[in-house]
């Protein structure tokens, strides 16, 4: 489909044609005066200029009609632009709503999954509270309320406490020869009870082992009874380990205290 000439082009072409014909006509007139008259060409030029003038007037009328149509075009374009703005706003709102809903659905799915998990493996609330108390009672989760800068208490066992523990006294057992395990158990009962009864006197001590916890190692010690003989072979190594650990802890505690 060939593109049609715009009305503006048609009008400008008409005007140019009239100009050319008028010039030709005047040249012809001047030539007529001087030389032999050429009336046929002259009349043709006159007819041509008249025709071009008629075309010009018709095209001007068309341009007037198009001017009226252009107002409709402008109004329609304004209306279309307004609708475009509304559509863009609506799109933005729908996008936001989609995001919100997607987030809500995701979180709801996660909650449903945790509900299912909880229903599959129910836990007694008493046991949960007991474990929570056990974890937090040693002040490993949060410092005690009366803790100040310079307090030697630590949320981890210090070297002194380690020496008082089972591993520390394995060396004693080796030195003293054969020592029964119940005696070994009674000793920590004795020393730690002293420690727990006077907490303020022995600085840097937390009650790492409660009375209940002391009963638990009975089971583990019975297992160790079989391998107790093997422990005799490596007491020095464990002492060395304890010494190494204590060195490390002392260095860390000294750095903490600074």
């Amino acid at each position: 489909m060939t593109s049609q000439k715009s009305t503006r082009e048609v009008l400008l072409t008409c005007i140019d044609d009239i100009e050319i014909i008028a010039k030709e006509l005047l040249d012809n007139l001047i030539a007529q005066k001087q030389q032999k008259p050429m009336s046929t060409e002259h009349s043709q030029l006159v007819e041509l200029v008249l025709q071009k003038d008629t075309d010009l007037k018709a095209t001007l009328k068309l341009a007037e009609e198009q001017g009226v149509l252009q107002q409709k075009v402008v109004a329609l374009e304004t209306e279309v632009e307004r609708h475009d703005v509304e559509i863009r706003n609506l799109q933005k709102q729908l996008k936001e709503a989609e995001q919100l809903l997607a987030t809500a659905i995701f979180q709801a799915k996660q909650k449903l999954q945790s509900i299912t998990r909880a229903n599959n493996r129910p836990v007694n609330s008493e046991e949960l509270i007991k474990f929570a108390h056990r974890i937090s009672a040693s002040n490993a989760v949060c410092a005690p309320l009366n803790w100040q800068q310079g307090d030697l208490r630590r949320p981890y066992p210090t070297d002194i406490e380690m020496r008082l523990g089972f591993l520390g006294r394995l060396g004693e057992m080796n030195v003293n020869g054969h020592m029964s395990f119940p005696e070994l158990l009674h000793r920590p009962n004795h020393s730690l009870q002293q420690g727990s009864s006077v907490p303020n006197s022995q600085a840097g001590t937390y009650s790492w082992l409660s009375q209940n916890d002391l009963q638990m190692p009975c089971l583990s010690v019975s297992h160790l009874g079989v391998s107790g003989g093997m422990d005799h072979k490596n007491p020095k190594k464990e002492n060395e380990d304890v010494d190494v650990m204590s060195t490390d802890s002392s260095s860390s505690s000294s750095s903490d205290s600074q």
Partner: protein
Amino acid sequence: MATQLVEGGDFDLLSTIYDIIKSVEKEQQDNAQKQKDSQEAGQKVLELQRKLDHAREVVKKLPGIELSKDEQLLQIDLLRRQLTLKRDLLNKYRSITSFDREAQSEFQIHQH
């Protein structure tokens, strides 16, 4: 609006051409009159040139003649269809209220 931009004499070129022809065709015996006539003819030629330039300026300012009439009508038709589509789109999405499955299935059937 085109008529307001176009005045009566903006495109009246024929009368000027006629005046020029009349001035040129006058045969005078007197040299002074001849000179006067030729000056007059020269002025009318300049006037014609001015009118032609003015006509071109007016044509350039006329609105809505960038396209032919057929193309303009096509443009109007396209704009009207576009407007209808967009209006329907907006009405469709504004009328959605609930998110239950029955409404969603009805909406999908309506779309197809």
